[in-house]
């Protein structure tokens, strides 16, 4: 299976994502942002980092990179498209997911593992997980605070498109267990078809016990499984 790992100038998690996907048996390839076609790829990942320096606004410039036209086409056609961290921000800017990510509640960068609860398995990111499962994944962001207009939030919640919520080790999600002020403790969402999904924490940083956690595997395995079959539909 061929996965495109898109590299913008300023992206920095591309090697980690490629390593993790390689460990899971796929063939990841780094694709420069000036490419205009993604033909033949079974899946696309927009990895973390600071695309175009995050200048102006996270993702604001990246959405105009040439490769994004091809990413949008694949998203519409049902190819699994995964955004991690900065990739989440770019997918929101590109209009492939609703809402936006703004500065953390405490106005500080946060790098630490946080517990997350699986809310829905209806996406390429969570299909092999189970609802209610609590994972522990590294969060690593300054703009990780999800916001969206009320009607978009209602639809996200009503359609079961909130994939992951920040919680505590017991799975309780409320303001006291919310690390960055994210609306409804949202950590990851999907589009209506379930083939475009994104999250702020980094599953690729949690695939080996030596580095502290293997909880990211179930998410990346979902992505890999999704590439192997018909894209997920709502």
């Amino acid at each position, binding site marked *: 299976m061929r996965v495109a790992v898109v590299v913008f100038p300023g992206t*920095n998690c591309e090697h980690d994502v490629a390593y*993790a996907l390689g460990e899971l048996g796929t063939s990841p390839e780094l694709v420069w942002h000036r490419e205009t076609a993604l033909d033949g790829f079974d899946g696309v990942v927009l990895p973390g980092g*600071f695309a175009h*320096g995050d*200048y102006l606004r996270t993702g604001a410039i990246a959405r105009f990179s040439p490769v994004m036209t091809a990413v949008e086409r694949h998203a519409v056609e049902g190819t699994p498209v995964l955004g991690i961290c900065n990739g989440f921000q770019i997918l929101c800017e590109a209009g492939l997911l609703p809402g936006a990510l703004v500065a953390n509640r405490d106005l*500080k960068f*946060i*790098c630490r593992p946080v517990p997350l609860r699986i809310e829905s398995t209806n996406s390429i990111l969570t299909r092999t997980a189970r609802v209610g499962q609590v994972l522990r994944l590294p969060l690593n962001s300054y703009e990780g605070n999800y916001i969206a207009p009320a009607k978009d939030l209602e639809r996200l919640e009503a359609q079961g498109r909130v994939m992951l919520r920040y919680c505590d080790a017991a799975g309780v999600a409320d303001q006291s267990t919310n690390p960055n002020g994210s609306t409804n403790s949202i950590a990851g969402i999907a589009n209506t078809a379930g083939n475009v999904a994104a999250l702020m924490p980094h599953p*690729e940083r949690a695939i080996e016990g030596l580095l502290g956690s293997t909880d990211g595997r179930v998410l990346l395995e979902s992505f890999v499984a999704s590439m192997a079959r018909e894209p997920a539909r709502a």
Partner: protein
Amino acid sequence: MSGTEPAHRQLGMTDTEYESVVDILGRPPMPAELAMYSVMWSEHCSYKSSRAWLSRFPTEAPWVVVGPGENAGVVDLGDGWLAALRIESHNHPSFVEPYQGAATGVGGILRDVFTMGARPIAVWDPLRFGPLSVARNRYLLSGVVSGIAGYGNAVGVPTLGGEVEFADCYSANPLINVMALGLLKREQLVLRAASGDGNVAVLLGSATGRDGIGGASILASASFDEDSGTKRPSVQVGDPFEEKRLIEACLELYEKGLVVGIQDLGAAGISCATSESAAGGGMGMDVDLDAVHLREHDMTPGEILMSESQERMLAIVRPEDLDDVLALAEKWEIAASAIGHVNPSKQLRVFHQGELVADVPAASLSDDAPLYRRPAERPDYLDHVWKVDEPLPAGIDLGETLLLLLDDPALADASWIYEQYDHQLFLNTVIGPGSDGTLMRIKGTRKGLAVSTDGNALLCYLDPRRGSARLVYEAALNVAVTGARPFAVVDNLNFGNPEKPGVMWQFLETVEGMAEACEVLGVPVIGGNVSFYNETDGVDVYPSPVVGMLGFCDPMPEDPPRLDRAEAGMDVWLVGPEDPDDFAAGAYNRVVLGHRRGRPAAPDPGTAVTVVDAAASLAFTVPVLHDVSSGGLAVALAEICINSDIGIEIDNGEWQYLLSESPHRFVAVLPAGRQPDVHNVPVRRIGTMGGDHIDFGRHGSVTVAEAAAAWHDALRSRLG
């Protein structure tokens, strides 16, 4: 500055130094030449007060590939892998403007490392500030941490740790040191020498502007006074996005074999990079300043030569490769200009608008720099501080005392700082910040790299020679408890005004202490930095050497010791000699008794080696190993309890054993019935894990929850 002062004095140059320039050139220097000499001969660039003494350090070992003098030291890890290590300070800029000062410190150190052909894989930041009870110190700490985070995270290099200490002497002169580690394959190693007649010097990266002009001579090489705020224009402004593209572009240039030599532009900008490149290759160079891409178009030649604009590199390339180099720069969206040509003249000739504005022997800028053997004299304060009149109390409540110590910002949980740094990128971090030493794996191998940065300025103030030697031993133990052996050292020597004999004495004693300890351990010093003039309004900082220790293991422990692996029923052992009387420079004196006096115990070289060996061996089989340092055994045990969320019952003894800070000791926690397998080292069982109290028996007790709260909240409650 007065307009009537001669130009060379305005640039920070003495009359004698000016006369030397006239001698070298056989004529008075032209303005641009004077600008170049003033910066290249500054303390910061030339090490004129220190370099006579730095040869004292042992620098050789079979695994040293590149020793001191290049941009970074390089060691051989076997199987074609090399590691590059470098440490620097950015003290004065960070005091003037904490965010940009710290940010550009990170940027500069990364360029030093990728200049060698290495991908920078991690950064550490040892920091020193004045007490957090002062609002400005809180502002400086927050600004510096934000600057490190803002630049390091965005440039895509994880910050894996560092340490922080506080003392009054840093209120007007904080210390911001930064160390970077890079990894490379042997064939990627690049040096700066500009060889090859006709080769082209290509300036890569940011446009050159007026920022940072005189940074090296004005900011870094002079003491501070109340007007320091007016020096803000001498602080550079960093752009991590530019640096990220520059890193990727340079790594691709190396991979494709398109560069002959390369040099980063740091202090003294183009003048330093061109002269060092040319001199390094025994060549000369013609430089055309009209070809330099500028941010402002009315800059004088002196300003262009001296600008310290960030994120720039000077690559030496073969003429036939120039088009490929320019195309690759275009791909990574970085600017590139061919600004010079290498020739055999050994002269650095600089042209501006068709005029020759500088014509100097390239090597003279570095090799002919002044060399000072400044007078040194043992300072009188030692007689005062070695006297301690107050006896220690006969008995104390160790529970209460422990809470006071855990609330001390230097001993407390530093996660308020390091959680603002990406410390996981590249998937190498096996043990991250918050432990004794960082441990990284090298993917695709069984090799591990451990790193610790250590400083204890009070210890060095009270006895520079003993203190600095103990720092080296402590750093060695910190990497050993992860399973690594001490492998290479870099040092950052932060001192006051070297023109004062007392400061110079502290410096010489420190060099001697560190050199001795490195010799004892068999560890080469592969690089370092000297930062003098850390003095404000006549007050010098403590002698503040920082040791950066690189440890290496092959194989790495499959399950290395961690502070959170203690379980109920496990036995707690102390490995190493015990001295109940080493309270000088200790946390108990400083935090509880409120004085900073006493003479630290001398280190024991023989014991240091056996204890480090013992720790590095035990790390392969023992779940918890923890160095005993600041705060003594009590704080070391508390950190294990807090991280493992479990109590401990500590066997009775005199309370002094729990707070003394004598060197060469570590704690090992093992399953019941197992004894640490060590030889020729004292071993004593000191307690058992279990319950929810840190129980000192007749000396008192405290719950783990209370201890954890004090430890976690100490920085948070002060910094918000």
